[in-house]
């Protein structure tokens, strides 16, 4: 039982990371329909930002974190300006920006691999390596930090979409682009913001997970796969779905590694298996979107 609770905390922490990556996908898919495969590389870029500012220059954690996130917003905005907007304005098919973003994925990864030596780069923990015990539940400081930050982010995003006019305008664009434009919603601003937000969420995931796994230029692709699996499990329609999907995936992964009698490397097959099962049985994900019901 102790073992199970211990595992639950670390699973919840990695589930939160997957949830953030899923949120990054969702923020961009909802208003634009564009699947951006580069979210994993964005997480990687933020992890290297963390290494640079927090390990090398030894900035205080909150300042470094804010700087990295600010930089990620900029990266997302710039990516949209360079690789998405020209194509959307030209009326190119949806495939075109997706492919351009694939090219950007390689560009991001290669820029990092050119700039840093290929070995893993350590990123510090914000609260050191200690453990926190709450009754029978215990886990590392980092696990609790990840869970807390993720909950705050999801609450903020949820409030933004449900309670603010700006959030409603995102929703309107997701439901019907043209009608939203006719209602006076600035489409290109919504798209730019969704990419900035997506890069922010992905970057936060990369920064939070980097103390555990170290920054490495190949860390992006696994995160991109896990995040997308989480999105498929939870459903594209609702923000909460991303978090739910991430948690479910992480629990399935960690329980398989711990209790199933298979080599631990095969646990990497869990996302693919879950992805297939959900696409077959419940292609819309666990949570239906509100629009579909109405």
């Amino acid at each position, binding site marked *: 039982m102790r073992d199970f609770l211990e595992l639950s905390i670390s699973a919840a922490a990695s589930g939160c990371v997957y949830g953030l990556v899923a949120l990054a996908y969702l923020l961009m898919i909802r208003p634009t329909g564009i699947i951006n495969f580069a979210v994993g590389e964005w997480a990687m870029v933020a992890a290297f930002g963390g290494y640079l500012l927090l390990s090398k220059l030894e900035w205080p954690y909150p300042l470094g974190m804010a700087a990295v996130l600010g930089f990620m917003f900029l990266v997302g905005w710039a990516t949209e300006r360079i690789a998405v907007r020209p194509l959307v304005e030209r009326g*190119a098919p949806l495939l075109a920006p997706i492919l351009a973003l694939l*090219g950007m*994925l390689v560009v991001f990864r290669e820029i990092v691999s050119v700039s840093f030596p290929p070995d893993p780069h350590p990123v510090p923990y914000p609260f050191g390596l200690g453990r926190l015990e709450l009754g029978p539940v215990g886990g590392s400081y980092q696990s609790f930090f990840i869970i807390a930050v993720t909950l705050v982010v999801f609450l903020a995003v949820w409030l933004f979409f449900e309670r603010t006019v700006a959030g409603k305008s995102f929703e309107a664009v997701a439901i019907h682009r043209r009608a939203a434009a006719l209602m006076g919603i600035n489409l290109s601003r919504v798209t730019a913001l969704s990419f900035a937000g997506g890069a922010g969420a992905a970057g936060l995931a990369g920064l939070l997970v980097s103390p555990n796994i170290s920054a490495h230029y190949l860390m992006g692709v696994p995160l991109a796969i896990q995040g997308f699996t989480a999105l498929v499990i939870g459903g594209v329609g609702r923000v909460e779905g991303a978090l739910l999907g991430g948690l479910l995936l992480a629990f399935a992964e960690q329980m398989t590694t711990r209790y199933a009698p298979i080599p631990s490397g095969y646990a990497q*097959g869990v996302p*693919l298996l879950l992805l297939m099962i959900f696409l077959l049985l419940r292609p819309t994900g666990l949570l239906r979107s509100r629009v579909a019901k109405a």
Partner: protein
Amino acid sequence: MSALRWLAAFAVLAALPFFLGSYYNDVYRKLLLWITLALGYNFLFGICGQIAFSHFAFYGVGAYSIVIFLFQLELPFPLAILLGVALCALVALAVAIPSTRLEGFYLALATLALAQLFIVVLNEGGAVTGGTGGLANYRLPEVFGVRIAGPWYTVVIVTLLLGTLAVLLRLDRSWFGRACRAVRDNPQAAAAMGVDVARTKVVAFTLTSALAGIAGMVYAFVDNTVNPPIFGLDNAFLILFMVIVGGAGRHAGAVVGAILLFLLPFFLSPLIGHHHVLVFGLLVVAAMLVQPRGLIGIYDALRRRLA
């Protein structure tokens, strides 16, 4: 006339290796294999409009399966080939059928996960796959009492390339090829015209994956070794980039793209070391922004202006 053309192409391509040294023969063989892969991928991506990252993984499934079937299970040669193709088709079906249930690019993500998992299976496979070191020290068995080696094996690869091209051209000009283009350009309209969109996608994916598997079987006896790093995701991206830079949807585009991106590193490496992938990424972004039809599109535009 057409048959004569094919014969001439075969004669030129097959004669070339007999004038090349062993190093250039090796480069030539790899170039032919890349063109074969790019042609197959172009059918899936350029003509049917599906992104998949598993093309290179299926190349690996083919290569590994023929080696395992022939030398670990000691099956007869024709049976090993048949089983290898069947394996590729089965895996492809298992991935494609769930992925096409939703509109959008779900196949891309499912195949990304599949390609990643394939490398894990290879590394963890123990004695069957040889783990991280892969399998080596095997030789192409005698086929009907003939031992094929040196330039003659290059002739086998030329046959593979032209065979693949013939199959794809035939498909492209058939009802199925037109259905694929319709699915790419407008799935709703295609469905309204009576095309089964999901089935067309699944068949195109399975078929091109099986073609990649066959190419992989031929590759297994080029280096006489198969190991995990060869079949990684980097090459899966490279093949997509070849098709985009050359010109998606055109067979000539796939050929041009494959030749260019295969040869580019030979010229770039004295200048920028092994960072040529960065150049590939920039090329793709530039292609999408400036000329989405790739080099073939530029060629077409030039010809139209001159005419």
